[in-house]
């Protein structure tokens, strides 16, 4: 009985430990589900999201430093350097190599406070800041000892750098002269945290030469990072670069910009970089550009403009290709003053002198008598002017109720067409301008592209030029067009406003017997000769014009070109002077013009010069103030090309 009883109990116990209790399956199931969840989560996180975690780890622990590439150089058409780069030496301090020093200095300062039982002990953060300044001061003292200088640490700059950019070297001293650089190079230990850093600075060896054309650069904190540079996803610190702001520096910025280089560093949790870099790539200099400018001609033009001492502009073009040989504007500025940054004083000085404007491409001026060439073309093409046309000049010409004067010459009586050009006779052009009509004049001007920008590619080229006609006057001023307006336009006065570059293109086109000259500042030795629509003058018409224009430089208003200073034996120059007036509140200002080309028999170089009169009421004539600049350019061109005249110059016009 008891045995049976014990068996029964025993069986119950065994049964209870066999695990067959169905309730346990619930826990087993739960455990399996939890384990599966855990395993699945692990699988998901470790395998499926491995890339994401790797990326996060990378982003958190790596930093990228981008160093801009130096800009490309600009050369003149003969390969002479116009704009380059010069090294800029600086002393930098790698803060990451000073961590232990910072810590030791912090402990020392804190100990001193405690030993002195000073109740006003600064906070830990403040003590750390003091320690950093103290250590950096010590390194600067080393430099001061070597150079015999007394530089001081700017604690605010240091702290800002430490907080925001501690991965980058701290700039301790910049623009170190080569002699001091040599001393530091020799006397600073190779392994010092103090290192010499070299960056590039834009260098303009000719200082003010072609200042507006070459342009300048400004500091750029947002350097364009080369797409092929790895680490785009990383937090990136950029060293300061430059960006073109004016002239060719701005127009060709994309080509001149160098390819940025850089390095990727692993950083510790405090943000200090760990050496060596994981990846490093040196920056590459931007592409060099050969401009069409001719250094010798540009120098000759600017030297003469400076001697004259007036504001103005000079443009010279290669007649066959439209390449710009000279593009000068005065007053100008020292391009080196823009790097590393333009000071407020220099900025104010440029502003005061009115030197910001590129008068060659941005200045809109009435063309004065130089426009008579276009009036002549329009008259010839309209059949109103013939090579043998003439007028009786009395010095006054009545249009409606208004008397227009001709004070450009003293020859009263019959004035032939070539003589009208030579003497710049207003009466002739009043007469034939009115006969030709404003519509034909305006159409001719538009045919030569004088109503639109030349498209030279320089920034801020004037775009508000216009050729006035009845429709324009009605739309602009709601006024009727009068014959007097036509008379004014015929001699390049009134509302007409053009840039010197436009006039240079115009005269270059005329020299080729064509209507358009798209100018370019890029040199291409294989550039083909331009071919644009022909003017459509008869041979006799063109010959009469050339005779008159050649006489301008021989015996006419531009005869200064025959003085010893500017005369080139055998060089036949066809040109036209002009003196335009502009009314200002202070009085009437004159603008002196000269446009022309040479050699007259085989045009190769075309020039337009405009000089602004600076004194109201003063006679600033084109022959006296503008022609000399053109003469200097012609002379430099002849000397450079070894021009030897084959045809002796002879006055072509007789009264």
């Amino acid at each position, binding site marked *: 009985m008891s045995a049976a009883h014990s068996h029964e109990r025993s069986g119950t116990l065994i049964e209870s430990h066999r695990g067959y209790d169905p309730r346990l399956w619930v826990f087993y199931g739960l455990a399996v589900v939890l384990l599966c969840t855990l395993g699945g989560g692990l699988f998901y996180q470790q395998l499926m999201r491995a890339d994401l975690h790797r990326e996060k780890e990378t982003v958190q622990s790596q930093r990228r430093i981008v160093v801009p*590439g*130096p800009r*490309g*150089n600009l050369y003149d058409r003969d390969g002479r350097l116009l704009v380059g*780069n*010069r*090294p800029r030496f600086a002393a930098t301090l790698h803060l990451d190599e000073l961590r232990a020093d910072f810590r030791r200095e912090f402990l020392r300062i804190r100990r001193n406070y405690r030993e002195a039982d000073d109740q006003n002990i600064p906070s830990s953060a403040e003590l750390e800041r003091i320690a950093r300044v103290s250590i950096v001061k010590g390194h600067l003292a*080393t430099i001061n*000892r*070597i150079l015999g200088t007394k530089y001081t640490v700017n604690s605010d700059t240091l702290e800002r750098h430490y907080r925001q950019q501690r991965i980058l070297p701290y700039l301790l001293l910049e623009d170190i002269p*080569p*002699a001091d*650089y*040599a*001393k530091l*190079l*020799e*006397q*600073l*230990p*190779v*392994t*010092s945290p103090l290192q010499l850093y*070299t960056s*590039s600075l834009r260098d303009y060896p000719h200082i003010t030469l072609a200042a507006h054309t070459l342009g300048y650069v400004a500091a750029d904190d947002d350097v364009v990072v080369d797409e092929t540079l790895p680490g785009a996803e990383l937090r990136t610190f950029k060293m300061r670069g430059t960006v073109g702001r004016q002239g060719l520096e701005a127009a060709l910025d994309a080509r001149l910009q*160098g390819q940025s*280089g850089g390095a990727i560093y692993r950083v510790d949790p405090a943000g200090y970089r760990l050496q060596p870099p994981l990846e490093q790539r*040196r*920056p*590459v*200099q931007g592409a060099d550009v050969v401009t069409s400018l001719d250094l010798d001609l540009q120098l000759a033009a600017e030297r003469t403009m400076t001697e004259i001492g007036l504001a103005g502009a000079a443009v010279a073009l290669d007649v066959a290709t439209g390449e710009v040989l000279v593009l000068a504007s005065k007053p100008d500025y020292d391009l080196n003053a823009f790097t590393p940054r333009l000071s407020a004083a220099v900025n104010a000085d440029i502003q005061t002198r009115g030197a910001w404007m590129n008068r060659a491409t941005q200045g809109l001026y009435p063309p004065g008598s130089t426009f008579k060439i276009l009036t002549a073309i329009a008259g010839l093409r309209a059949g109103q002017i013939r090579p043998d046309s003439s007028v009786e000049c009395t010095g006054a010409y009545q249009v409606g109720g208004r008397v227009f004067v001709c004070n450009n010459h003293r020859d009263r009586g019959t004035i032939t067409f070539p003589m009208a050009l030579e003497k710049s006779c207003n009466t002739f052009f009043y007469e034939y301008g009115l006969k030709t009509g404003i519509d034909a004049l305006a159409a001719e001007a538009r045919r030569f592209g004088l109503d639109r920008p030349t498209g030279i590619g320089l920034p801020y080229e004037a775009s508000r030029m216009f050729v006035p006609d009845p429709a324009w006057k009605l739309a602009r001023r709601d006024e009727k067009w009068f014959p007097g307006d036509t008379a004014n336009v015929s001699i390049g006065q009134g509302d007409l406003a053009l840039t010197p570059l436009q006039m240079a293109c115009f005269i270059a086109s005329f020299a080729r017997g064509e209507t358009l000259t798209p100018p370019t500042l890029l040199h291409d030795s294989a550039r083909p000769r331009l071919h644009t629509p022909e003017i459509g003058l008869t041979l006799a018409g063109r010959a009469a014009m050339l005779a008159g224009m050649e006489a301008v430089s021989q015996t006419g208003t531009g005869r200064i070109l025959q003085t010893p200073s500017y005369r080139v034996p055998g060089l036949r120059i066809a040109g036209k002077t002009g003196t335009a007036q502009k009314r200002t509140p202070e009085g009437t200002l004159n603008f002196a013009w000269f446009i022309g080309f040479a050699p007259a028999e085989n045009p190769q170089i075309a020039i337009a010069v405009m000089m602004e009169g600076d004194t109201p009421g003063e006679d600033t004539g084109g022959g006296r103030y503008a022609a000399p600049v053109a003469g200097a350019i012609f002379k430099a061109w002849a000397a450079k090309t070894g021009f030897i005249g084959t045809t002796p110059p002879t006055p072509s016009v007789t009264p």
Partner: protein
Amino acid sequence: MRFDQARPFFTLGVILLAWLLLPAVVKRFVRLSFYELKAPVDIAASYAGDLQDFWSQKTRTNNELISAARDLAAINASYELRIREDNRLRTEISRLEELLRLPSYGEFRSEPARVVRRDFNAWWQRIIIRKGRNHGILAGSPVIYSGGLAGRVVEVHATTSVVELISSPGLRLAAVFDGDDRPVSFQGGVNPPLRPAQGLLEFVPLDLFATAASPRALVTSGLGGVFPPGLTVGQVVQLDASTDGLFKTGRVQIDDRLGRLTEVTVLVPLDPSVVTPADAAP
């Protein structure tokens, strides 16, 4: 029993631990003391080497010695001539400096010194010379040899000094191309021992050229304030434009004789401040 077996390791561990825990000042003192203690051994070995050379010379025949003496006399004569020429040039330079009111370079006192041995601690790019503090040697002094600039004194002990050779990456100086006046950076390269040494050039202006076929001499600039001008550093045998377009980098072949120096001259400045800036001798 098992402790007895481990006792040497235990003792070593205790010594190492004690060394680690010693204050830095004590460690430095011990190191310097050991160096000074060991210095006579090095010097004795150097003298023994000289004696060995002496006895090896004794084995030469009279004819050989007479011939060597004649050669030596010829060399001495040429040196006499050079000294006279140098004196003339020195006078001329002083006259011109006075005329142009130029500052005079620091004056140096020559201190010839025998080379004890090359220091393998610095991958053989340092030498130990047999002159030290007792002979007035100053840390930072330039050291020259027959081939030009040898290096710079970096450590001075009582009877010996350590010279960092120009072939060491730890030495950097402002040099110029012979005939040019623009400073370039010269630094010793990573040179394996017992091979012709080379140096690296940086910040070379783009208009300077040199190739192995047409090398150019590199000399000290005198601008750095440590080395007098005109001492030959080596021959520039390669120049490559760097990608940034600002400068060229290059390679300098250093005279082979630098690898077998036996005698050098220390140029000790009469004005110690010329060569003892804060970090002259790290």
